[in-house]
Every structure is written in structure tokens, then in C-alpha cells.
């Protein structure tokens, strides 16, 4: 180095005398900065555990209260009630699917006509109301303003008429007539145009015709529905008393906690006067033990009534199931009927078991910690902030995350790896310089932008597609929600394609060229060389790419928060592939959505940290496996 300044050696020596060298200090400085990574990782683990582990005892206490207050007892009956309501609603949906399906044509015509009129009214309504209000005798608008408003109205009217929704089931003449009647009606007229009314009548008549042959089904459904009314009133009677008990217990818990805090503060206080004051306050906060036995005994007295109600519901349900038809003319109706038929035996079996469960139930059965853990890991409900009881079951969230990952990986693996193979093996230099930057740029897009694309562009396109008659055959179409598992999966696929692509391309690129050369020298064609030699040799690298893509998908937050639909419910797998078009919630999304709204230190707050621990562990395992594959590839 020509411009190296000659450094006098003295300073170093001076430090050395004290057993501390300047060089070593620098080294120590760098080493400590490197050690920072370990500190950060340790902090992450410590704080996740610190906040998270408190969850289980807290949840255990919540479940204990749930039991001793008798909420659990009520839920035995409530569960059957819910099942009954579910079956009723399926039967009703089947009934209406049959009727509406049989007069679908009339229904569409009527709906389209009213949709058209409504679209017009939505746009012109506000201005029209203004004019009407200002024309009242008691208001005194300036004439200039009225003219302006009327001008405005005309403007909006012509705009509205030019943006009317399509009416594929109406003939052009009918549409023309409809538009004409809107155009020509007095602006303060509110009654529907005659065609809308006549189409509505037409539809009503068609329905009427359909109702006749289904009368028996209707009666059956109604009988079933009313069979549950007794149970329903019983449950609501019990609900009030147990909720009151629960509140009492919770209040006592809070007082007890305050007392402990005060006592702890008292033992730490130095000033004796202060200490006395704190102890006095603690004594004042001593809660009287809430009366548990009284309300529970009242509840227990209802046992025979409860059992009797279940008995009669079971008998009614068993006889009704034989009266239901096996199929209807509309496929959707038949499908729903089938679902009901499938649910029936489960429902009856549950009812059968209920009296035993009711008799066995005892509010004194202890709730061990393991119950809290297992009900977190295998619980089917994540219910928070409810008035009844909070449950923290992870299954709906895990199922959502998993379903989205399945969709994303199903799309991203073939396209990511396919593109990697193509770019590395077959593409010309020119193609490479086009494809690679585009895919690299996809990687640079922030996930929140992808989420935005999902909400405003992709979801809408998907919904419009699903409404097309020619695509009805796809299971799950037409979709109910534009934000669902499939939408989120597609966007996450787009997000993980660059990861999978670049890692897989690296893996393929790292296969020694001697392999390809040897294969071609043995008479293999390019495609044979690629698929029989290069891909197998790069296999573990490609597997690592897929795993890292999976890790990225499962840990991604913003896209799923925006696009997955955020319905906390295990997807209804009875709808087959249509399941993928249901909304769901995810492990990452729940943290992002709820952390900002929970009280610090509450059970709910801690539950979110446990979800975080779970995510952390899952992603670490995935990444560790991936790196093992990468190392195997290197060897």
C-alpha cells in the first residue's frame, strides 16, 4: 500500500504493559457485535416463552371457571341445539335450492330487473330526496337552488342510465322497455316500473307452483324445527344463571389478585405507616367466597328435565329422518339433502350419549394443566371477546394456514421448478435476461402490495369469473366470498415462486457440467439429459428450495391478513374441492389482527404469543430440514 502511514508502535506497547492491547480491544469489539446475533435470538426465545408460557395456567383457570360455574354443563345441551339448528338450516337451504332452482329463469329475470332499477335509484336517489324535501311547503329554498338541483338530477340520471348493470336473462326489448319506463317516469315517482312488478309476480307464481309438490317436505322440516324449541328454551333459561355465577367468580379472582399485589407491595414497603395502609387495603379487598354450590344445585335439579327433553328430541329426529326424501330434482338440493342424511346418524348418536354425559358431569372434576394444553392444541374453536366463554383452540388457524400453503405450493412448485429448469436448461441467453429480472422483481414486491393486489384486483377478477355460467362446473363456483383460501393461496404462490425459482435454479446450476457432458456423450438427448441426470442430481437442492418456499408461505403475514377472508372457522370439508373457496384465518394473521386490541398480560394476549412460539418452531424445523438437504447437495 503506497499511502500507508507509518504507525508508531508506541501506543500498542503502552497498552500491552497494562495487559490490554489495542488490537485485542478491537477484536473484542467485533466479536461482541457478532455475539449480538446470539443475544437477539436468545431474547426472542426468552420473551416469547416468558409471555407465552403464562398462557397455560391462565387458560387452565378459565377452563376451571367454565366448569365450576356450570357453563360446561349448559354447553352439553347447547351443542345438540347447535347441531339441530345446523341440520335445520341445511334442510331449509335444500328446500329453497329446489324451489329456486326449478324457477331459476324467472328468478334471474326478476332479480336482474330489480337490480337495474335499484342501481338507478342508488345513483339518483339522494338528489331526488333533496329536491323533494326542498319542495315541501314549509321549506323555503331559493328558486335558483332548485333549478340547480334539478339540473344536477338530470345529469345524474343520464349518467345512471348509461351505467346500468347487464341483464342477460331479459330480452333486449324488455330491457329497452324497462329503461324507457325509468327514463320517462316523473322524478318523484317511487313505485317500481310495471315490468319489475310483473316479473316479480311471474316469479312468485312460478314459486307457488313449485311449493305445491314440496308441501310434505316443508311439513317435515317444520316438524323437525319445532322439535328443538323445548331444548332451545331450556338452554336459554340455564344460560342466565350460569353467566351470573361466572361473573361472580371472575370478580372474586380479580379482588384476590389485587389483594396479593397489595400484600406484596406491603412487604416491600419501608415506611411502617405505608405498610399498615397497604395491609388494610389488602384486607378490605378480601373477597367473600362466591357461592358456587347454590346455583349449581339448582342447575343439577334440572337434570331430569334436560334428559327428558333430549329423549323426546331424539325420538322426533329418528322418526323424521325416515320421512325425508333421498333426492330432489335440483343437484344442489340433492347434495344438501345428502349432507343432512350424513349428519343425521352423528346427531342421533350424540343425542343417545347425552343423558349419560349429563348424569356424569360433575363441577368438582379438576381441570389439570394438560387439559389446557390439549384443548389449545386440538381445540376446534378460537372464540375471543365473547360474552359466554373464550376458547383458544388452534385448529381453525392451523387448518387455514395449511390449506393456504397447500394451494400456494400446488401452484408454486410446478411453476417455480418448471421455470428454473427452463431458464437454466433450455432458454437462450436473451430469454434468460428477460425472465430473470422479472422474477427477481416479483421477489422485491413488498407483501402488503401483493395483498393490495389480491383485494382490489385478483379477488374481484376471481369473483367475476366464478359468476360466469360457463364456469359453473368448477366445484365451489360461484364463490360466496371474493377473499378466500384460493385467492390467498394464489398470491402466496406468486410470492414463493421467486424463492423456489432462484434456489432451484442454483441447485440445477450447481450440478457439475461433467454430468451433462457424460450423459450427452452416452447418446442422451438434451431433454433426457435434463430429466434423467441433472434433475435427479439436483434433487435435494430442489427439495430444499421447496421447503424454504413452504417456510416463506407459512410465515407470511400481510397477504393472508388482507386476502384470506379472516373467518375463524375450520373450513367445511364436506364441500370437496369447493372447500378451497371458503374464507379462513391463519396463525400469522391472527397475531397481526388481535395483538393490537388485547389487554397486556391477559390470557388472550398470551395465547397470541403461544401462536408465535408455534410459528417460530414450525418455521425453524422447516428451515433446518432444508439446510440439511442443501448440505447433502454440497457433499
Amino acid at each position, binding site marked *: 500500500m503506497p499511502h*500507508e502511514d507509518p*504507525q508508531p508502535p508506541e501506543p500498542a506497547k503502552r497498552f500491552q504493559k497494562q495487559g490490554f492491547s489495542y488490537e485485542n480491544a478491537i477484536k473484542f469489539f467485533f466479536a461482541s457485535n457478532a455475539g449480538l*446475533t446470539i443475544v437477539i435470538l436468545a431474547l426472542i426465545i426468552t420473551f416469547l416463552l416468558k*409471555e407465552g408460557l403464562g398462557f397455560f395456567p391462565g387458560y387452565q383457570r378459565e377452563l376451571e371457571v367454565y366448569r365450576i360455574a356450570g357453563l360446561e354443563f349448559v354447553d352439553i345441551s347447547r351443542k345438540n341445539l347447535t347441531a339441530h339448528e345446523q341440520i335445520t338450516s341445511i334442510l331449509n337451504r335444500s328446500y329453497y335450492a329446489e324451489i329456486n332452482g326449478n324457477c331459476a329463469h324467472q328468478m334471474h329475470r326478476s332479480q336482474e330487473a330489480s337490480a337495474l332499477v335499484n342501481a338507478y335509484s342508488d345513483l339518483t336517489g339522494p338528489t331526488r330526496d333533496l329536491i323533494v324535501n326542498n319542495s315541501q311547503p314549509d321549506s323555503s329554498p331559493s328558486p335558483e337552488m332548485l333549478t340547480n338541483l334539478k339540473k344536477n338530477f338530470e345529469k345524474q340520471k343520464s349518467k345512471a342510465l348509461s351505467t346500468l348493470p347487464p341483464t342477460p336473462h331479459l330480452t333486449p326489448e324488455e330491457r329497452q322497455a324497462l329503461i324507457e319506463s325509468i327514463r320517462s317516469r316523473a322524478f318523484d315517482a317511487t313505485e317500481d316500473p310495471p315490468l319489475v312488478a310483473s316479473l316479480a309476480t311471474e316469479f312468485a307464481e312460478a314459486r307457488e307452483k313449485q311449493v305445491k309438490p314440496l308441501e310434505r317436505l316443508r311439513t317435515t322440516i317444520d316438524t323437525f324445527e319445532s322439535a328443538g324449541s323445548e331444548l332451545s328454551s331450556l338452554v336459554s333459561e340455564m344460560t342466565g344463571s350460569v353467566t351470573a355465577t361466572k361473573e361472580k367468580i371472575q370478580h372474586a379472582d380479580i379482588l384476590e389478585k389485587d389483594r396479593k399485589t397489595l400484600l406484596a407491595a406491603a412487604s416491600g414497603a419501608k415506611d411502617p405507616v405505608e405498610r399498615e395502609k397497604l395491609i388494610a387495603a389488602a384486607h378490605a379487598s378480601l373477597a367473600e367466597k362466591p357461592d358456587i354450590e347454590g346455583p349449581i344445585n339448582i342447575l343439577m335439579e334440572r337434570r331430569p328435565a334436560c334428559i327428558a327433553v333430549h329423549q323426546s328430541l331424539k325420538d322426533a329426529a329418528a322418526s323424521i329422518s325416515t320421512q325425508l326424501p333421498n333426492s330432489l330434482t335440483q343437484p344442489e338440493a340433492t347434495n344438501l339433502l345428502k349432507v343432512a342424511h350424513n349428519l343425521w346418524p352423528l346427531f342421533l348418536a350424540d343425542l343417545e350419549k347425552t343423558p349419560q354425559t349429563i348424569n356424569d358431569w360433575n363441577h368438582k372434576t379438576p381441570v389439570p394443566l394438560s387439559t389446557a394444553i390439549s384443548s389449545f392444541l386440538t381445540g376446534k374453536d378460537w372464540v375471543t371477546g365473547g360474552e359466554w366463554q373464550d376458547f383458544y383452540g388452534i385448529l381453525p388457524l392451523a387448518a387455514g394456514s395449511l390449506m393456504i400453503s397447500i394451494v400456494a405450493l400446488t401452484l408454486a412448485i410446478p411453476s417455480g421448478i*418448471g421455470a428454473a429448469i427452463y431458464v437454466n436448461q433450455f432458454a437462450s441467453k436473451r430469454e434468460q435476461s428477460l425472465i430473470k429480472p422479472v*422474477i427477481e422483481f416479483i421477489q422485491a*414486491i413488498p407483501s402488503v402490495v401483493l395483498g393490495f*393486489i389480491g383485494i*382490489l384486483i385478483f379477488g374481484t377478477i376471481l369473483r367475476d369469473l366464478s359468476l360466469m355460467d360457463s364456469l359453473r362446473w368448477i366445484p365451489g363456483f360461484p364463490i360466496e366470498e371474493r377473499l378466500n383460501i384460493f385467492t390467498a393461496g394464489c398470491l402466496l404462490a406468486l410470492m414463493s*415462486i421467486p424463492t423456489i425459482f432462484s434456489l432451484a435454479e442454483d441447485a440445477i446450476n450447481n450440478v457439475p457440467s461433467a454430468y451433462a457432458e457424460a450423459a450427452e456423450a452416452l447418446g442422451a438427448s438434451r431433454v433426457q439429459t435434463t430429466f434423467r441426470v441433472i434433475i435427479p442430481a439436483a434433487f435435494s437442492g430442489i427439495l430444499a428450495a421447496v421447503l424454504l418456499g413452504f417456510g416463506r408461505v407459512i410465515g407470511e403475514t400481510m397477504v393472508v391478513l388482507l386476502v384470506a377472508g379472516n373467518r375463524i372457522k375450520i373450513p367445511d370439508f364436506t364441500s370437496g374441492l369447493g372447500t378451497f373457496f371458503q374464507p379462513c384465518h391463519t396463525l400469522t394473521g391472527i397475531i397481526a389482527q388481535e395483538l393490537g386490541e388485547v389487554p397486556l398480560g391477559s390470557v388472550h394476549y398470551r395465547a397470541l404469543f403461544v401462536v408465535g412460539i408455534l410459528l417460530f418452531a414450525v418455521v425453524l424445523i422447516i428451515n433446518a430440514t432444508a439446510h440439511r438437504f442443501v448440505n447433502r447437495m454440497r457433499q
Partner: protein
Amino acid sequence: MFNPETLIRKGLPKGHFKDVAARSFLGGITYLVVSIAVLLFAKIIADGAPVLFKPEAPFVDFEFLTAKNETLHVFDDAQGNRHQLPAAAYSQYVSQHEGATQFNEQTYSYSGGGIAGPIAGTALLTIGSMILALFFGVSAAIYLSEYAKQSPFIHAIRLAILNLAGIPSIVFGLFGFSVFVLAVPVITSAPSDRSLLAIPLLIGDYFLSFQGWNSSLMAGCATLACMILPVIITASEESLRAVPQGFRDASLAMGATRWQTIRKCVLPFSLPGILTSSLLAITRVAGETAPIMFTAAVAAKDDLPWQGLKNPFDLLSSQVQALPYHIYTLAARIPSSEFTQRAQYGSVFVFLLLVAFLSLGSMILRAKLRAKLKW
């Protein structure tokens, strides 16, 4: 006996159709991905560009970039003219036209004005976290590439880096929230109730209280820095290792100390590489939403970050708006309509433009670097 005639194929080569099928299948997939990406960009550009650009000189609508974010008021006046005014202009209008009635008034949150606040917030977050991450990251990389020998300590560091790199961003959000927002020490005269530990300092009435920095610019920067640290370390170490061993040997042989060698013979040559890869890290830091949701970001704020401060420290301990969080708010919290589109697509377009510039810059720099540095 060998018949040389077999070397000459008749018609198309064997397996030709398989070849063509395989190639076109793979090519089809590839171009499908590419064209989907291009279509999405085109859609955003088509909807977003008109917000930022206009047909007459100076072609760029700086107002969108420099105006504060406000609620948008849409209404008709008595003449039937439709007005779209952001909150400040709206109240001015109302005071000017006292007594006049507005019709069909509707308000759209976050949709009026520009995005100066989010841009400034993101810039501050990015600068702050990159300063932290570069300082600690480059130092760590120097240790790993220049000093470290095989030892359990180094092994642990590498394992930690590997694991940190894989942690989902939302977990960093949880970490930042529980550590930087709620637990790191501050010096204060009045420790908060939830302080984990308050140690009285001997000077005055002050305590060293472990109560966190609250949701603030500081906490956000620290969280983002932790998240990006492994990326910076890995990239810097790579650049440092790319400097030939000979440079170091020569310098050490001339009697320079280790630190002099690093400062004069290694760092200057690896600096361009480190900076190039930090550009890519910036795109990631600027685009992350999950880690700042609970540590720094706020949806609505009247002042720009540096306005209304009593002392510079207030800047660090106040919440900021951030572009990615703003986009999240626009996408998730408000219903889309013709009046919100300007804000929605405009913000996304500006954001994408920013990301595109950064990643393009890093691509070009990388190419230049490769061409320039060859030893």
C-alpha cells in the same frame, strides 16, 4: 458389423415430439408466470400513474408526494358542482361559504391529500434501521471473516444467523413489541406501572426503568434492524471474503496490524459490495409491515414526523406513519370506491416505483461491480 448409414437419420430425430412437448410445457409455465407478473404491474401502473403524472409540464404531480394525508370530503354545492376536498381545504371552504348548503356529502378516511407523512415515516424507519443494522452487521461480518477461527462461539453465531434469517416477520413483530415497546430500559423520573424493574439512579429523582420505549420510531427501527441483521451480515461477509487473501497477506507481511490491514486493505475494497447488497436490504426493510404494526406505525397522524417537536428526542419516541402500513390501511380498512382509488392506487404505485428504483439500482450496481472488480 457397423453400418455407418445408421448415423443418418430419416425424418425427424427420435423423440423429437417428446422434446418439443417438454420444452414448450416448461416454457409455457415460465412465460405464464412472467406474463401474470407483467399484467399485474401493468394494471397498477395504468391505475396509479395518472395520480402521480399529468399530461402537461412539469408532468409530475408533486402535490401527491408532498401533501399531508387527510380525510376526503366529497359534496355538491348549490350550483350542482361536485367538489372533492381534503379536510383542511374543506374547512376553509366551509368558512368561506358560510350558510351555503352542501348536498350529498360523503367522507372518505385517508383518501384526501397526499402521502407525505407515510413517505417521511418510511424514510425515517429505513434510515434508522439501516444505520443500526449496517453498524452491527458489518462489524459482525468483519469478525466472522477476518478474526474468527473454528470455535463453538463461531458455530453458535452462525447457527443464530441462520435461525434469525428464517424467523417470520410477524414473530419479529411480537419480539419487538414485547422487548422494545414494553421491556427495554429508559431513564425516567416516573416509572410506569407496568415497569418490569425500576432501579433508582443516584442522580436526582431518576430511575432506570425497564418499561420499554412505547410504540415509537426507535422501537420500530430496532425491530427492523434485528430482522435485517442476518441479511446484512451474510452479504457483508461475502463481500469481505471476496477480497483476495493476498491483499491481507501482503499488508500483514509489511508489518501492519490486523486492524490496519482491515481498515486499509480489506474494507475499502469490499465497501461497494456491502453497499450494493444493502440496497436490496433497504427494499425489504421499507416494505415490511408486520414488524412495525405494533412497534412504530400509526394509521393517521396530523403532523409530519418532525413537526411540533419540543426536542429532537421526541422524534425518536413518537409514532410515525409508514407507507406499507398506509397501504394496509387503505386496502383493509376503507371500502373501495371511485373517490378512494386515487389514494389507493397512487400509494401503491409510488411504493412500487420506489422498490423498482432500489432493486434496479442494486442490479445495475452489481453488474458494474462485477465488471470493475476483477482480481
